[in-house]
Every structure is written in structure tokens, then in C-alpha cells.
């Protein structure tokens, strides 16, 4: 009899029980669902501009209007310096990177609430949804990035000194970090909002405040030297600054500041996955 049970134990493909493990990330299972990730990306992309007149042009129009607003308010009225970079270009660089980050964070932060109908009926690794959002936001970013490059080439052609440097090789890594940071914060919030809806209100408001704590509309050089390290505790700062430095030749964040940013991203991502994992098991009972 004892023998029987040991043989059988190996045959069961899955055990469903009250889970007590805190960190339970099944990457293999996620990989098995890569088709689903791609289909969600496809759905988001197609549905986004079906039945709109301008279609995908919206992806370009939105940051363009933001940049024009920033140029008028912060450049012409408030006269905040832009480190000698043409204001339009300066704001554009900050805006598209920041928008990518926020486009990951905001939709992901309502994952559980928005997909409750599907989550309540079918099981698949819940992380599929945030990951697909990161990828569809990246597609959107690439379109906006093309616009930025076009503008940059135009300005260089017009006589702006060409300062693109080897740092551009770091840009994909920086973007990956932005995506992971957005996802980490997003899943953390989404997991907590299933029970405490108050947080949902905080997201839109908090995102706006966070933008002002990040050098999107002003250069880091405007921040007093003694506050710099405190300033760099915001992991988004190093992301935006590295991106700008690669294209404009401004100062790169120090290795120390970069490490803080990467470390903070890792912490948010880890915390996010832990809490998300815990909530995904039982959230149908609380939503």
C-alpha cells in the first residue's frame, strides 16, 4: 500500500491546494502561454483604432500635443532651461519615455478589475495580461520613437550639433527597465486594488505627481547637487536621463545612481510578483 502511493504520486500532473508559498513564479507555464500573450497584444492593437477616424495616427498625435503644451507652458512662459537642447526635442524625449512607463503602469494597475470577467471563468497564468500590456505599449512607443528620430534628424539637419553617442546601445536596456518598473508597480497596485479600491483613485493622481518628480519638463541640472541622490531614489529619473544622454550628449547618471534605479526596479518587480501571486489565487472571492 505504501508502495502504491509513492508510485502514484509521480503520475499526478497538478496538485490544487491552498498555497502557502510566498514566491511562486512559474516561468515555464508563462512561456507555454506565449501565444496568448501575442493574441492579447494583437487584440489591444487592433481594437485601439477600430472605428476611429484617425486610427493609429492617435499614437503620434497624443505626444505631439503634449509636447506643444509643454513647450508653450514650461518653455515659453515659465522659461525653464532645457540644457541648450531645442525645447521641442527636449520635451519629446522626456514625454515618450515617460508615456511608455505610464502606459505600462496605468492599464496594468487595473488588470484584475478589468479582466475579472475572463479571470472568473478560465485559468491561465494571470501575469499573461500585464506582460501583454507591456508589449503593446512598446509597440506604441516604437511608433512615437520613430517620430522622435525624425524630429531629431530634422534638427541636426538644421544645424543642431550631432551628439548621439555610444550610449544608444543602452537604450533597449533602459526601455526594458522602464517596462519592468511599470509592470512591477502596476501589478503591485492591481493586486492591492482587488481588496482596497481606494488605490485605484490614487493611480491617475499619483502618476501626475510622479511625473513632476521626474525630469520630463526640466533637466536634472536644475536640481541642487545636495538633493541629487535623494532625487535619484526615484527609479524613473535614471531611465529618462540615460535616454536623453544617449541622444543629446548630456551627462549620464553616475554608476551609483544607475544602480539605485536598477535595484529599486528589482524591488518593485519582486514585491509586485509576490503580492500578485498571492492575490491571483483567491481574488475571485473578493472582487
Amino acid at each position, binding site marked *: 500500500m505504501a508502495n*502504491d502511493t509513492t*508510485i*502514484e504520486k509521480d*503520475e*499526478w*500532473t*497538478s*496538485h*490544487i*491546494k*491552498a*498555497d*502557502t508559498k510566498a514566491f511562486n513564479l512559474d516561468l515555464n507555464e508563462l512561456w507555454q*502561454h506565449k*501565444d*496568448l500573450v*501575442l*493574441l*492579447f497584444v*494583437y*487584440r489591444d492593437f*487592433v*481594437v485601439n483604432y*477600430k*472605428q476611429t477616424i484617425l486610427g493609429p495616427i492617435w499614437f503620434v498625435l497624443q505626444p505631439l500635443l503634449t509636447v506643444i503644451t509643454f513647450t508653450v507652458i514650461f518653455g515659453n512662459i515659465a522659461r525653464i532651461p532645457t540644457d541648450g537642447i531645442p525645447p521641442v526635442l527636449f520635451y519629446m524625449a522626456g514625454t515618450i519615455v515617460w508615456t511608455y512607463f505610464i502606459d505600462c503602469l496605468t492599464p496594468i494597475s487595473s488588470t484584475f478589475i478589468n479582466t475579472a*470577467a*475572463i*479571470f*472568473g*471563468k*478560465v*485559468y*491561465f497564468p494571470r501575469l499573461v495580461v500585464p506582460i501583454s500590456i507591456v508589449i503593446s505599449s512598446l509597440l506604441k512607443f516604437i511608433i512615437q520613437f520613430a517620430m522622435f528620430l525624425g524630429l531629431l534628424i530634422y534638427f541636426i539637419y538644421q544645424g543642431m550639433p550631432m551628439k548621439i553617442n555610444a550610449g544608444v546601445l543602452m537604450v533597449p536596456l533602459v526601455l526594458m527597465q522602464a517596462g519592468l518598473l511599470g509592470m512591477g508597480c502596476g501589478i503591485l497596485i492591481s493586486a492591492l486594488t482587488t*481588496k*482596497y479600491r481606494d488605490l485605484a483613485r490614487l493611480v491617475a493622481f499619483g502618476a501626475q505627481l510622479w511625473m513632476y518628480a521626474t525630469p520630463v519638463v526640466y533637466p536634472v541640472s536644475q536640481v541642487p547637487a545636495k538633493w541629487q541622490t535623494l532625487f535619484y531614489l526615484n527609479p524613473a529619473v535614471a531611465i529618462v536621463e540615460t535616454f536623453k544622454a544617449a541622444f543629446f550628449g548630456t551627462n549620464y547618471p553616475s554608476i551609483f545612481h544607475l544602480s539605485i534605479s536598477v535595484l529599486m526596479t528589482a524591488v518593485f518587480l519582486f514585491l509586485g510578483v509576490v503580492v500578485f501571486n498571492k492575490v491571483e*489565487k*483567491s481574488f*475571485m*472571492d*473578493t472582487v
Partner: protein
Amino acid sequence: MSNDVIRVEKVFKEYRLGMVGTGTLSRDLQSFWARIRGKEDPNSIITRHSANTSRGDREELRQHILALNDVSFNLKKGEILGIIGSNGSGKSTLLKIISKITTPTKGEIKVKGRIGALLEVGTGFHPELTGIENIYLNGAILGMKRAEIKGKLDEILNFAEIEKFADTPVKRYSSGMYVRLAFAVAAHLEPEIMIVDEVLAVGDAQFQKKCLGKMEQVSSKDGRTVLFVSHNMVSIKQLCSRCICLSGGRIVEDGAASRVVDAYLSRTLSGDANPAERKFKNDPSKEFQVLSVKMLDSNGKVSREFDCDQPVTIEIDCVSRSAIPGLYGGVDIVNNEGVTVMVSDTYDFPPNCVDSLSPSNYKIRIAIPPRTLGHGEYTVSLGFHGAHSPYIFPPQFVCSFRLSDNSSQRGNTRAGYLSTLLKWEIKKA
């Protein structure tokens, strides 16, 4: 012995009733603190029901219910298991746990093979996407690989009978096409274990037959295991080899499908369990809801005893909170053998009177004319569906009544299903 593909071992599921509010955070912290110290959760009835508790704690514990209470059973490969029970008996909770949508509070379920759960047809369908795009999306959500779906695409379109509309956005589909497409995708899933929750209640009779055939084929030919929850006792009897009956979160019956179904019907048909009036809890979050169902006699009084010479009126109080396109309702009259002897729905007299019903309270009356049904015990099953959401009010037994024939010569000994009196016209030939 090692033939089992599912083994459910002492599964409990606890829910906390009532509002999640300001008190929640402190209780959560208390439970969390207990868990990290490896102690038992003080806010759970599973661990606390026997311990000495203060008054406040007892108030709190009263808000906890066990949706599943010590459920255990095994399921063999190739078996079709029916699961029946009244609403709130824990059927859906059990399916949700087996399909990994939620976790048990205690206990364990061991599974051998891939599980495909069909708790709803068309999960994740997006109205803006075309038929084919939705097949891919829905298939992937249900666990199929892209290549797998690609190979079955023609077969799915063919099964759903929508080849001509494959490239049309599904928002332009009729409700019938929508449901057929949704079921077609699900029917072509090939998991070792299939969980089906009442999806057969949708679609027209012919399509239902096709679905039932597909399910039978899946288990007998391909040797797959099926778990099937339904309120339709006839299809349970037809399809299932074995059936379990849940009540109050416990298994009260487990055995041959026909025996379990008969026992369940005789229990629900006995007067106490199923009165002539049934009220439902008001839930303002629902777009449409049935508030009460009554059986009325010819004087408008609630009754469960009727004479064959009197009309039997079913009165439904309902509330519509927002217009649901394509909403329709249906009533099944089931006799004590579990046979549906009469069906009536809102399409019988066009236009459908509840389609896109504007927000308000409504009273619906359905009268069964005198001398229609024969004497005997009947249960009334009522359901409402929308064009794109099959379960606005899931079909369920709501009331029961008894008819007796007191005026005809044969009276209550008349055989047959009807009490219609036919005139024998006689003439000299």
C-alpha cells in the same frame, strides 16, 4: 486503482460574507500575522468553530460560510460525472476550484492531465474582432496553441455554421451565431478532462443536440473525462454514468446518475423544500433580476394545489436596471419523472416582450390554460438570457405545484401527460 484522473480530498472552501470595509484591514493584518507565525488563522471557521470565542469574534465568524464542507470523491478516466444540487449548494465553487480559478481554503485536489474548463461560452470574445480573430483569441484563452487552432479552423467554422461570416466582426452576429461560434471553439478543445457548466442551455434545439453528441463522442470515443453541471435533469440522465448531488457544500448523494437524479427530484418536489412562492435576494449590481416567483390560482391567491379545470398562473416580479439587448426568458414545466412536458418562452408571441426592457419594475404573468397538463407534481424552471450573455438569470427550479383532476370520471387515475378533454363526436353513420 491508478485509473483515477481526479482525486478530490477533503476540500473546504470558506467565504466571508458581507461588505469589505474599514474593519477588513485590521482583520487581514491579524490573519496575516497569525499565518507568518505559523499559527492558525483566528478569523476562519474551519480552525475556530470549536474554540472558545468572545462575543465580538462570534459575530465576525457568523459572517463566514463554508461553500464546500469536506468534499471528497474520485473520478476515473472516461467517466462522465454529473453534478447537481440547488443554487448555492456549492456546485460552481467546486468547478471553480477544480479549474484553478480559485483555491481551496483547505484540502487538496490531484489531477492527471490537462483541464479544459467551459464555465461560460465565448470568454474573452471581443465584439470588434472578426469571427476568425475571436476563434484564435478564445482558443488561446481556453489553452490551445496557435498552431492547434490553425489546424482546426475550418472544422470550427464548419461546426458553427458561420463560414460565410468568418471575416465579419462578431458584434454584427445574431445571438444564435455568436453562441454557436463560442461553443464550436470550446468543443474543439482537446483536454484530457473537460469541465462543462450548463453551456448546453443555450442555442436552438438542433444545435443543443449537436453539442450533446459532441460531448458523448469526446468521452466514449476519445476516452476523456467530463464533469458536467446542469439543472437539466434529462441531459444529466442521458449523458452521465455517475452523478453527485451537493447540498449545503456537502455531497449528499453519489452513485448512478438516474438514481441520484430521482432522489434529488423527489426531494425538491416535496412541498417543504419547494414552496409555491420563491423570493430572491435583491442585488443592485445586476442589470436584470427576478425578485420573486409565485404560483397563483384563479382568485390570484398563492397556492401550490390546483385543479385541472383552473388556470395555473406563474407570476414573476422582476426588475430591469438597464436595457439588455436580446433579453429573453423561458419557462420549463418538469414533471416528477424529470421530463420537460412543456416549454414556453418570450419569443412565442412576437415581439419578444422583454427584449431591451427599459429600467423599471415589472410583473409578468404566464397562465397555463385549464385542462392542459395532467394531474401530478410539477416543478417550474425559469431562466433569462441576453443575446451576448447567456446567464442573466440562470435556469433554475423556482416553484413547484400539484394538479389534481377532480371533475372528470377518471380523475386522478388518468394516465398520460395531458388532461385535455377530447370530445367524442358521434353521428349515425
